[in-house]
């Protein structure tokens, strides 16, 4: 399988690999996928008092496209508000990385990971997700 240069770049030099303490109140953790499917993504965000994502990191078990998709979104969501981050669509990730059709699910997983991380952060804050999503 031929990978795009951008996938290769993120795969060879993944950005923001790491972990935050899941117990910290300003950290949101999203873990999506399953070993049975061959992909597990863990995306973490550190959110400032203004609701801006100050830092993000990831670890991914999966193919090169899954690693690249998660690496890319850590770059993209940093500096964005939670609401803004939630508008990120998998199609943008797939387009940026030139993912072939069989790898589209990797970008879907990355979008899901953002949602899960935001949801986790909001649950910790006690913010009703429905109110802020409206």
């Amino acid at each position, binding site marked *: *399988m031929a990978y795009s240069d951008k996938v290769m770049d993120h795969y060879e030099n993944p950005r923001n690999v790491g*972990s935050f303490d899941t117990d910290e109140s300003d950290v949101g953790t999203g873990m999506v996928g399953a070993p049975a*499917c061959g992909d597990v993504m863990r995306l973490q965000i550190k959110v400032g008092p203004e609701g801006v994502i100050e830092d993000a990191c990831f670890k991914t078990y999966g*193919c090169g496209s899954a690693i690249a998709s998660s690496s890319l979104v850590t770059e993209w969501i940093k500096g964005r508000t939670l609401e803004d981050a939630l508008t990120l669509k998998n199609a943008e990730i797939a387009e940026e990385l030139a993912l072939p059709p069989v790898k589209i699910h990797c970008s879907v997983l990355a979008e899901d990971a953002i949602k899960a991380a935001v949801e986790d952060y909001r649950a910790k804050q006690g913010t009703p997700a429905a109110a802020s999503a409206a």
Partner: protein
Amino acid sequence: MTSVAQSPIYLDYAATTPVDPRVAEKMIPHLTSSFGNPASRSHAYGWQAEAAVETARAQVAELVGADPREIIWTSGATESDNLAIKGAAHFHRAKGNHLITLATEHKAVLDTMRELEREGFQVTYLKPQPNGLLDLETFKAALRPETILASIMLVNNEIGVIQDIAALGAVCRERGILFHVDAAQAPGKVAIDLSTLPVDLMSFSAHKTYGPQGIGALYVRRRPRVHLAPLIHGGGHERGLRSGTLPTHQIVGMGEAYRLAGELMVEENARVRALRDRFLAGIADMEEVYLNGDLEQRVPHNLNVSFNFVEGESLMMAVKELAVSSGSACTSASLEPSHVLRALGRSDELAHSSLRITLGRYTTAQDIDFAVALLKDKVARLRALSPLWDMHLQGIDLNTVQWAAAAH
């Protein structure tokens, strides 16, 4: 040669082998000067070609302890499997409608069985033990009065384990059940003597044994005689079992490849075993590495190893200097881990994390050392990226985790 210098190290001999230069040399004249059709009875071109085909038939028969008249040329082991299984099932339909095979067989056998099921036959797919070997009692228990054929492979293509076909065949012989063996991966690695083995049908391929692609053979026992219904009809070649002009150059190549295999087998197995052991010693200090399939009842050429918590496709990408294959079919749309590893009862993570590394005639100690060093480095790098490795280090049992699998 720059192209060779840039090529990855070939460690995928179970997929195909290069043609041995000694084999290629024998083939070439049959493409240009001795190009006759072996079925041409009226001139010297045909006679020469026929003589070359019969020499090759004797060479193949010699390696496996058969009579040359028991060797039928086919296009490869897939066709041989189809001819043996469908041919026997169709011919013996009146006797019974049940067949038996193993869940870890090659797709050439499994998909042929599925096709027979669509035609109304019943098929039992036996599960091997966790080491990949078929238990004799399990096999016996599956036999029915209406069973007409059992098909069990000699050497597994993914995990290299060797089934006890002598014992399985004896049970079949006792009950009057035809026994087919897919031996595509075996010649030159395992000694085969069909003059003593209770096997009725055996499939062979040239390109797994340093011969050309596109040629194979089916052994069809003469005493007691095995009857098959042909799949391909035409000029009545190969005793009516497989019509079609014989590809003389391919056949000559298979003959020479099998002759060489017989000559080199003992020495080559010892050399490959030493390389295999060197590889295993090299990775012995790595954590969470699992060999798939039995280590003893196995050809030394095959290593199927799971590097836990690392996904197979990303590992293949990381070791692109090596030409190996993955037990995970993630590159296809299916995302299904190997049916063989699943049948062994391996967890999905382990099945997804496997590499098949197969050694052969041209593998060197330097190749092995390079592969070991590269794998160690890349596995460590990918584990540093893996949330599953993190969880493992924290002592979390992955089987207890509720996975939020997305909609796929």
